[in-house]
């Protein structure tokens, strides 16, 4: 059975971190599994947790009155779920629901924030890596704003 440190090293966002930093992060992490339909995050709750998805698909959802639940994005093995733990007011923006069996590493955001404050090089590394994830998601969202598939073709 793999240790949390070993599992962390397989997650993109943590790859290349020093053993010392992986140890610090592992101290705030634990293995968690979810069944289909389970909620990983609930909109507008205290954002104390984020996840690295090891396996399975998670839907980011919100409720639109008179339309029902809408899936905004799906996240998959290797993706990070949740960044509201990084910034005040530390509240989640969306629901996150398992679409099947989902295996994750779950992180205590408050614990990790404290370690980042105490160890600025770790904080800087994590901030850089999460910024990269956020930029990728922002770019993908911008593309979707273009409604590219709806464009009228000339042919």
């Amino acid at each position, binding site marked *: 059975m793999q240790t949390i440190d070993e599992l962390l090293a397989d997650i993109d966002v943590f790859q290349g971190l020093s053993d010392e930093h992986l140890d610090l992060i592992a101290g705030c992490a634990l293995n968690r599994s979810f069944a289909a339909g389970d909620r990983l995050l609930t909109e507008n709750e205290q954002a104390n947790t984020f996840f690295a998805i090891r396996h399975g698909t998670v*839907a980011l959802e919100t409720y639109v009155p008179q339309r029902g639940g*809408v899936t905004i994005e*799906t996240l998959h093995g290797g993706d990070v779920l949740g960044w509201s733990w990084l910034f005040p007011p530390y509240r989640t923006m969306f629901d996150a629901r398992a679409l*099947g069996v989902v295996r994750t590493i779950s992180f205590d955001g408050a614990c990790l924030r404290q370690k980042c404050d105490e160890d600025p090089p770790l904080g800087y590394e994590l901030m850089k890596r999460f910024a990269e994830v956020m930029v990728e998601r922002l770019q*993908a969202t911008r593309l979707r704003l273009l409604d*590219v598939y709806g464009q009228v073709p*000339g*042919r």
Partner: protein
Amino acid sequence: MVPVSYRVASRRRETHDSWTLELEPAGDAAVEPFAPGQFAMLYSFGKGEVPISVSALPLVHTIRAVGVVSAALCDARKGDVLGVRGPFGTSWPVEAAEGADVVVLTGGIGLAPLRPVVHHLLANRERYGRVIVLYGGRSPEELLYAAELERWRGRFDVEVHVAVDQAAAGWHGRVGVVTTLVPRADFDPDHTVAMICGPEVMMRFAVAALQERGVPAEAIFVSLERSMKCAIRLCGHCQLGPEFICHDGPVFSWDRVEPLLRVREL
């Protein structure tokens, strides 16, 4: 270039605004065989003529109703007669891709011109390496050929990934833009031929994602869309710099057209 009369042999609704018409010769005359990627000028008598790619062989077209002529074509019923000119343009490099992994990347109605490629790859599966189909759409309801996608996905020798921009909570597939499928698709960038069709902006970002994986520009092929009128390299409506899309395209390698697409005035 007189249109040849073809009869609508069958008509199937694909989405709220797209229909697939299977055509057969209405008389003794017939057009030459089409290759995947080529297009026909379809004539709705009394309305006009539009260029439509072949979406299956020998002569099947999937049409989105976006104007008077395309709406009239979509409205054609079984037994109605249409005019056909063609085949026109260049085809997808299915022979040149033999031995390589093939990535078919498409969005929206762009799956139609690539569907004959997938048919060819699956009919000649042993000639190719990994076959990957990446398809994006606005919503699950706007995906073309949903049943066929399911059949392709059910095979053990092809990887099919679909992503939609929006979905109701019951959708269990992927929600996101099609380009996000590229980083995790299983292909060897050094031995891959990629064929992309969709709106130009989608293709630009799709090419960027493939190049980030290491696929060289000369191994990436796109199908361009411009207003076409004559289809025989005369009128210039479809010109992109020195290229006539109707004749020199619509299928181009990326290294050939990328410098032209960077010129915003073209």
